[in-house]
C-alpha cells in the first residue's frame, strides 16, 4: 500500500534530528560510564589515562548534556565521526573505504529491480486475470516473502557450493593483481550473486505497484481513444499505459532505496562482500560502537536525501502535480 503524504522540508528536518538525537543519546543513556558506552569495554582497557582525559574533553563529557550535544554536532560538521578502535583509523575513513562496494551492489540492484518490476508489472497488468498474470502475481508475492539473506544463502549454496560457478566470498579474487578487462570481469563475477539476491528480493514492490496502477489506468477513457486511433498494442501498452503506471514506482524509489540498503547489510554478510554491511557485522562482533553509529548515520541520511530528491523531482515527472498547485 502506498503511503502518500505531502512530505516537506519539515518532515525531513524532524527525521534528521531524530537520527542525530538517537545517535547522541543512546550511548549516553546507557548505564555506567558514557565513555564505555561510546567506545566499548575492550577499547577502554587499552586506554591510557591521558588518552581517556583527551577523549572526555573531546566529547565534552564533563559538561552538561546540551553542551555535549553542541560538541557532537560541531564534530559532525567537521566530518569527524569518531575513532574506530578495532580498525585503528577514523570512522569516516573506514566507512568510505567500504562504501564504493555497497554503492555498486545497491545501485545495480536498485536499477535492475526497478526496471524489471515495472516491465513485469506492465505485462502482468495488461494480461490481468490471465494464467500468466496469476502465475506472476503468486510467484512474485512468494519471492517477496523470502528475506534477502535467505535468498542470498540459497544462491550461495546452489551456485557457489553445489555448482561451483560463482565465487564464494569477497569482491575480488585475492592476490590476483588483475587489470583492465579481466579486473572488470572479476568484479562482475563477484557481485553477480549478491546483486541477484537483492534484485529478486526487492522486485515485488515495484511489480505490485505497477500492476495495480496499470489495472486502474487501463480503464481510463484515453485508453479507448488510443485503441480507436488504431495504435499498435506495444505503443498503447508502454507509451500510454506504462508511462502512467511508472509514476508511483518512482515516488517509492526513496523508500525502496532504504530497503535495498538495509538488505545489502545482510546480503554482504552472507557473501563476505567487503562493503558497509560486512563492516557493520565486524563492528557488531567487536562492539565497535563508533563504526555502528557512523554507518547508521551515513545510511539513514543518504536515504533521507534520496527521498527528498525524489519529492523534489516528482512534479517534474508528473506535470499534473505542478499544475495542481
Amino acid at each position, binding site marked *: 500500500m502506498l503511503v502518500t503524504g505531502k512530505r516537506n522540508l519539515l518532515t525531513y528536518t524532524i527525521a534528521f534530528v531524530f537520527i542525530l538525537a538517537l545517535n547522541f543519546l*543512546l550511548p549516553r543513556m546507557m548505564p555506567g560510564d558514557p565513555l564505555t558506552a561510546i567506545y566499548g569495554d575492550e577499547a577502554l582497557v587499552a586506554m591510557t589515562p591521558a588518552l581517556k582525559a583527551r577523549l572526555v574533553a573531546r566529547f565534552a563529557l564533563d559538561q552538561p548534556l546540551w553542551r555535549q550535544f553542541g560538541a557532537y554536532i560541531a564534530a559532525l560538521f567537521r566530518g569527524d565521526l569518531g575513532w574506530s578502535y578495532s580498525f585503528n583509523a577514523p570512522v569516516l575513513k573506514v566507512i568510505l573505504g567500504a562504501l564504493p562496494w555497497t554503492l555498486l551492489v545497491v545501485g545495480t540492484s536498485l536499477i535492475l529491480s526497478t526496471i524489471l518490476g515495472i516491465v513485469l508489472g506492465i505485462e502482468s497488468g495488461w494480461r490481468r486475470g490471465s494464467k500468466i*498474470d496469476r502465475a506472476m502475481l503468486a510467484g512474485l508475492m512468494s519471492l517477496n*516473502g*523470502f528475506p534477502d539473506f535467505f535468498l542470498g544463502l540459497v544462491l550461495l549454496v546452489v551456485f557457489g557450493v553445489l555448482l561451483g560457478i560463482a565465487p564464494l566470498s569477497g569482491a575480488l579474487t585475492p592476490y590476483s593483481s588483475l587489470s583492465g578487462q579481466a579486473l572488470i570481469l572479476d568484479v562482475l563475477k563477484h557481485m553477480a550473486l549478491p546483486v541477484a539476491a537483492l534484485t529478486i528480493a526487492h522486485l515485488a514492490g515495484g511489480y505490485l505497484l505497477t500492476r495495480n496502477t496499470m489495472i486502474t489506468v487501463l480503464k481510463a477513457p484515453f485508453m479507448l481513444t488510443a485503441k480507436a486511433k488504431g495504435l499498435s498494442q506495444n505503443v498503447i501498452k508502454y507509451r500510454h499505459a506504462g508511462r502512467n503506471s511508472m509514476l508511483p514506482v518512482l515516488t517509492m524509489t526513496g523508500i525502496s532505496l532504504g530497503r535495498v540498503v538495509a538488505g545489502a547489510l545482510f546480503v554482504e554478510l552472507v557473501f563476505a562482500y567487503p562493503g558497509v554491511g560486512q563492516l557493520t557485522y565486524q563492528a557488531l*562482533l567487536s562492539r565497535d560502537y563508533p563504526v555502528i553509529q557512523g554507518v547508521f548515520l551515513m545510511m539513514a541520511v543518504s536515504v533521507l536525501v534520496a527521498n527528498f530528491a525524489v519529492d523534489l523531482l516528482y512534479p517534474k515527472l508528473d506535470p499534473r502535480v505542478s499544475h495542481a498547485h
Partner: protein
Amino acid sequence: MHISLKKEIKQSQSGKAGIIILLVMIAAAVFAPLLSRYDPMQQSTAPLLAPSFTHWLGTNQVGQDIWSQLLYGARTSLMVGFGVGVLSLIPSILFGVSSALIGGIYDKIVMRIADAFIVIPMIMVAILVAAYIRPDLFVLVLLLAALSWQGGARMIRAQALSLKEMGHISAARTFGAGLFYIARKHIVPDLGPILLVEFIYGVKRAVFIEAGLAFLGIGDPMLVSWGTMMRDAMKFSYLNVWVWWLVPAGVALSTTIIGLTFISHAAESVLDPRLRGEVVA
C-alpha cells in the same frame, strides 16, 4: 464499508492459502512441546548429527535438536510478530483517529512526525538500538511497536477523515455526541479491514526484523530463533548440513512471511475496490 472482509479473504485463493499457512505455524508454535521430545536449548554430546529417527532433522553444532528448535523458533517468531502487530495498532488508532477528528495544528504535528518516521529505514534503527541494548523478547516487541505505528496512523487517519464526512456522523454530532464518543462508536468499528491490513503488516515486519537481528547476532541469546539457526548453519555451509539445518529454518521463515503477504493482499482488495473481481489471484 459494506464488503465482508471474511468473505473477501475466503473467496481469494491466495487468501485461503495464507490463512492455512498461518494456522500451521500457530499450531507448530502452540504444540511445540508435544511435537518434539527434546528441549531446544538442551545441549548434548552429539553435535552435527545427520537426520535419524531419534533426531528428525539432526543436531546443530552444540548438539541441540534442530527439529525442536524449528518448532520453538515459530514460537519466538509469532510471539514477536503478534506482539508488535497488536501493540503498534494502539498508537496507530489513537493518533490516526485523533488526528482526523481534532485536525488543525495537532493533526499537522502528528502527521509530520509520522512522515518523518516513515522515511527513516526502520530496520537500521532497530539494528542500532539492538546493538546497544541487546533486547530480550519483551523489549524487542516494545521497540519494534514504537517504530512501526506511523504508516498505520496515516492510513487510519485517511479513512477516519472520509468517515467523518458521512451522514450518520453529522447526525450523531447534531445530537450532541462528543469527539471521543464518535471515535469509539462510529469510527473505530468501521476501520475493520484497515486494522487487519495494518496488523498483518506489523506482524510481517516484526517477524522479518526479529529474524534479521538474530541473524546479525544481536537478538536475545536465550531465545530459539530461525535467524540464529540460519546464522549458525551458514558457518557450516561447506558441509551438507544446510539441507536439514539452513533450509528448514529459511523455508519456515519465508513461508510465514509469504502466508502473511497473501492474507494482506486479499484484505487489500477490500480496501481498494478497483482491484477487486477479475484480478483476485
